[in-house]
């Protein structure tokens, strides 16, 4: 088994007395894809929010053997946790290339001093950043749109742009919140191949999704949440056999 990259335990998030996430733990190894499923309101997104520091939370988060304090997006990002939001979040007034560049981990020459006093150096660094951002766009198939403003992309393309942003951030853990939402079958398959390739590069993936086929094909392990608690975890085959999963998750999903 590969090295453990992310180890979260005892994660708790409360909103005004309501325990949205209650004592949840999740472990992801290098190159592993862990899926998180559960009915609406079971705390999946809140768990990702907690890990990425967007909401206040308690518990322990260890990334690559280092403890990370919860509650600070910058801290989680520095530790190598990169987050893709449920809704695509392109910057409409930036080009696709710039949208990807926003997430670059290379922060050399990014200040005012470099912009004013060391422009040749700044441009040299920028060119290197452009190259890697462009490579990320190529990987998701958006290379020909690099110079267009992100506002002109279709919904599916916006999702791919988010993935490109995630890849170019050189994450240790990439967290995706319903990446297949709004995609058609063909696009979903392409996304599946892409995400497997990302994992094969040694990135740990934490994926929330509602499409069972997609989750089944993508994930090595699955954690099932219900009302903020873990009700089952294991390999996809194990989880699908679990009686409680059928009741809690699939039942609810089909009733709706």
């Amino acid at each position, binding site marked *: 088994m590969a090295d453990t990259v992310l180890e979260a335990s005892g994660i708790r998030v409360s909103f005004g007395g309501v325990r949205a996430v209650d004592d949840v733990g999740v472990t992801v190894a290098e190159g592993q894809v862990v899926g998180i499923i559960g009915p609406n309101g079971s705390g999946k997104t809140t768990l990702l929010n907690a890990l*990425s*520091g*967007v909401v206040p939370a308690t518990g322990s988060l260890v990334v690559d053997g280092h403890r990370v304090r919860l509650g600070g*997006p*910058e801290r*989680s*990002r*520095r530790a190598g946790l*990169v*987050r893709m*939001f449920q*809704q*695509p*979040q392109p*910057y*409409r*007034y*930036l*080009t696709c290339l*710039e949208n990807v*560049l*926003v*997430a670059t*981990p290379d*922060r050399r*020459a*990014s*200040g*005012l001093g*470099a*912009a*004013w006093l060391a*422009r040749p150096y*700044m*441009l040299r660094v*920028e060119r290197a950043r452009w190259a890697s951002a462009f490579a990320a766009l190529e990987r998701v198939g958006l290379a020909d749109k690099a*110079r*267009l*403003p992100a*506002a*002109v992309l*279709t*919904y*599916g*393309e916006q999702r791919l742009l988010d993935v490109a*942003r995630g890849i170019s*951030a050189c994450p240790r853990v990439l967290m995706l919140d319903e990446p297949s*939402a*709004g*995609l*058609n079958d*063909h*696009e979903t398959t392409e996304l599946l191949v892409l995400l497997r390739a990302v994992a094969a590069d040694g990135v740990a993936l934490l994926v929330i999704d509602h499409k069972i086929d997609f989750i089944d094909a993508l994930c090595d392990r699955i954690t099932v949440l219900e009302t903020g608690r873990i009700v089952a975890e294991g390999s996809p085959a194990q989880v699908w056999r679990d009686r409680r999963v059928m009741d809690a998750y699939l039942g609810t999903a089909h009733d709706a």
Partner: protein
Amino acid sequence: MTDTHNPAAPPDGATERTGVPGLDAASGRLDDLRARLGASPRGTVKPPVYGRHQYLGVLAFVAVTAVAAPNLITSAEGTNLLDLWLLYSLAGIGFYWIFGLGGRFAFCQTTMMAVGAYASAYTIERGQPFWLSALCGAAAAGAVAAVVGLALARAQHFAFAIGTLAVSQIGMVVFSRTSEFTGVNGQVTGLPYASLFGHTFDSDRGAFWLFLGVLGLALLLGVFLERSPVGREAVAARDGEMVARTAGIPVRRVHLMLYVLGSVAGGLSGALLANWQGFVGVDQFGLDLGIGIFLMVILGGAGSIWGPVLGAGFYVWAPKLLSDFKEYQGVVYGALLLVMIMVAPEGLIGLAGRARALLRRVGKGGAHG
């Protein structure tokens, strides 16, 4: 063409982006239309390209203004307004950095001008040379902005606007008191003319060259800023704070930097104004000018550094051109503003961009027969 190229467009996904489906659908359709027409998407900041034409633009602006303005405008009043235009443009560029690029509405830009004016007057009265006093004025405004900016670092949108409004109110009270710093009742008089390298700018025409040089420098620094990672991260921090933070952008530092930078430009503008007019009065920097600076940026266009320059021109010259209407001047001015906001919601600079796109299309159509 774009539609056939992309058969995989989702049936409904594109219509629900921010939870207001009707609005988003209409907005999305408008964006598609604009993209097909070859126009840039609506909004405040065009996607920057690291091209050179922007630097040439600054150069051309300075050159054209240097040649045309003194030849076209010969009257004493006109020359006076010309100088005022350049100084207001400088303060407006500062506000553009804070509001246009940073997305934070600072009510206290005139307070920063006042800080710059008083600080520069204070140092020049103590025998310091002009250049040093002007720098002191700018630095003092920057220092005040740093303190205010740190105190309001967590304040969002309206809270920040209210906070800076409070700062400007405190400033008015402090400045109108009698003290060694603010003179008698906020009046400091008898300031010497600006002088640099032994040359004294003792006339409006002379000051014009100084102000044009300073404005040109500010524009150049502004263009440098926008064609750099700073510009990109400023837009990201403005348009999606949480995404920017999770992407590793130090959003609060970016906001603070733009606020201090914009205030320094305001402070410098105030310092130059003080030395040019020879006095500082607290009334000069009231809420009237504060709203005026906002007007300049909105009318000119908050999406481009050229917006405040155009807007300041309008602000300075419109009342003069409307003076024929005598007692109806205020009404006509108000109506004109209303019409401009309706015709050009992106400001005068947006109008220019639209005209350019139209010309390009007409040109293309002609070429194709």
